[in-house]
């Protein structure tokens, strides 16, 4: 069934765009799971590529050295990433949010350095000989499963607890939410999906190299999540799609910009936080300058026609 669908798709889409679509799907999975931690729970996570690497290398090593088949290896990759997530999250999530940012950053680097120095990962030469099993229909199914799972998760009692933690951790705790347990659970779930995405990545590219999982990959994922909107799952799909396709489109017309895209990602993160912290589709109690400015304009527009007395700033002083 999947093979039949894949045959249809391959005959319809040119191979280059087929590859871009697979990458986009994998990125969507990664950004959706990152959004659970950073968007819904409000914990800045800078090592998501590390979980992806754990999943990718686990699946890749099981496939090459131990001749495992696709589905068990993929699942093992997800579970390995989840286990690592538990080990990293348990001590660090008890602390203030900022420490998590640094700890996850360090974790991502440790994963990369470990992959670089171990024999079983192929070190700097990378891991070769993984069969190509991942295809577009499989990725689409994985994305849909991830989306539906996370969608029902964030709408559950658990999801509401996560949002409460994001909005005010102290108040959430006072309401009887076990904040650490909730945060760790969200982190482990996110790690699991990132690990699965990593496995799909391994079975698609057939070759793994530590440099594919560096810090900048984590930043790219964060930029996708922020652009789409923190705390909005559809936003993650949108953000991941835009940031995956845009460099591909620019690569032919403006190669210089595509090459230097990280400069723009950095500026993008700052600008979005200032102008519209909710990204394109996000939801939270925060409003950026863009919203404040629009609101002011709207208010000015409704006040102005009231006659000559309604000069700017002539509102009653309680209006602000």
């Amino acid at each position: 069934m999947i093979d039949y669908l894949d045959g249809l798709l391959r005959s319809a889409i040119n191979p280059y765009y087929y590859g871009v679509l697979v990458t986009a799907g994998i990125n969507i999975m990664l950004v959706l799971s990152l959004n659970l931690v950073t968007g819904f729970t409000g914990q800045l996570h800078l090592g998501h590529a590390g979980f992806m690497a754990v999943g990718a290398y686990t699946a890749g090593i099981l496939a090459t050295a131990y001749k495992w088949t696709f589905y068990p290896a993929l699942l093992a990759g997800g579970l390995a990433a989840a286990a690592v997530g538990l080990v990293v999250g348990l001590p660090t999530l008890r602390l203030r949010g900022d420490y998590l940012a640094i700890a996850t950053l360090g974790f991502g680097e440790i994963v990369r350095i470990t992959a670089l120095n171990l024999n079983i990962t192929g070190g700097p030469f990378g891991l070769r000989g993984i069969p190509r099993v991942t295809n577009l229909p499989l990725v689409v199914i994985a994305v849909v499963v991830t989306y539906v799972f996370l969608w029902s998760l964030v709408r559950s009692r658990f999801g509401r607890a996560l949002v409460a933690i994001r909005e005010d951790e102290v108040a959430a705790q006072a309401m009887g939410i076990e904040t650490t347990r909730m945060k760790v659970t969200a982190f482990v779930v996110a790690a699991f999906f990132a690990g699965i995405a990593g496995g799909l990545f391994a079975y698609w590219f057939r070759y793994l190299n530590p440099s594919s999982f560096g810090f900048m990959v984590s930043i790219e994922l964060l930029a996708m999540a922020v652009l789409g909107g923190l705390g909005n799952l559809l936003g993650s799909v949108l953000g991941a799609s835009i940031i995956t396709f845009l460099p591909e489109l620019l690569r032919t017309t403006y190669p210089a910009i595509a090459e230097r895209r990280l400069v723009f990602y950095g500026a993008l993160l700052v600008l979005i936080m200032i102008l519209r912290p909710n990204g394109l589709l996000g939801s939270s109690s925060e409003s950026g300058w863009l919203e404040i400015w629009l609101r002011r304009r709207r208010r000015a527009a409704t006040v102005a026609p009231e006659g000559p007395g309604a000069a700017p700033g002539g509102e009653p002083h309680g209006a602000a």
Partner: protein
Amino acid sequence: MFAQQLFNGLVTGSTYALIALGYTMVYGVLQLINFAHGEIYMTGAFAGLLLVTVAKLPFWLALPGAMLIASLVGVTVEFVAYRPLRRSSRLAVLISAIGMSIFLSNLGLWIFGPATRSFQPPFRVATLELAGIRTNTLSLLTLGLALAMMTGLHYVVTRTKLGKAMRAVAQDRDTAALMGISVNRTIAFTFAIGSALAAAAGVMVGMLFNAVTPTMGVMPGLKGFVSAVLGGIGSIPGAMVGGLVLGMAETIGVALLSSQWRDAIAFAILIVVLLSRPTGLLGRRLQEKV
């Protein structure tokens, strides 16, 4: 041999301490990890290099020049990326900080290219031996400058009006504002000092390793942060102690294991500190305010 390692660690550690001070001061006034601090250090190193090689300035003018340029960049970063977010959530400011860091390091790559540039000290460096420790005038100068700047900072923070304002803002921003302190100006001043110290470290490290690259800020930036956490984030003496301890722990670790693990040692220390004593060596226990 052991004394030699310890001395080398002390020199490296003094540069970590200079970087850590910027982190800890900014954390004190804003409760923000200024991710862009490592890039300010890189900016300082490049400014120093260009002032020496292009502007042909002598060292004693190039160093303050680099510090001044880095201060301006640091204050600009604060003005552009952090000030508009004063009332936003911590997450928004953190993301803005990480964005600024990525922006600056990649802008550096864009302008200067990825190649490593050599930074020859503009003065003659003599090798010498003191009590069985081989060293050179450049290392001694680094150590001396770092200690002098830390002493100067201590004086500024404890004895001047601006230092008092900084401490007041760190303690309670709103009350400080009610007392007539210009909070924004104090924060900008904090960024200026922290950036100047980082730039001094950048220039000295650039000359010590004879290498300046746009990505040079990443690792020292992280290690400066680890030093600040080790000493107790928010504590100025803590940052000094943390930097020196981390530098020495690293060189001893490298001597015992191998140089491949140099960068892992800092992270290991960070994890141990976070697990056992999150407030660091000299930090005070902070209660979450409602």
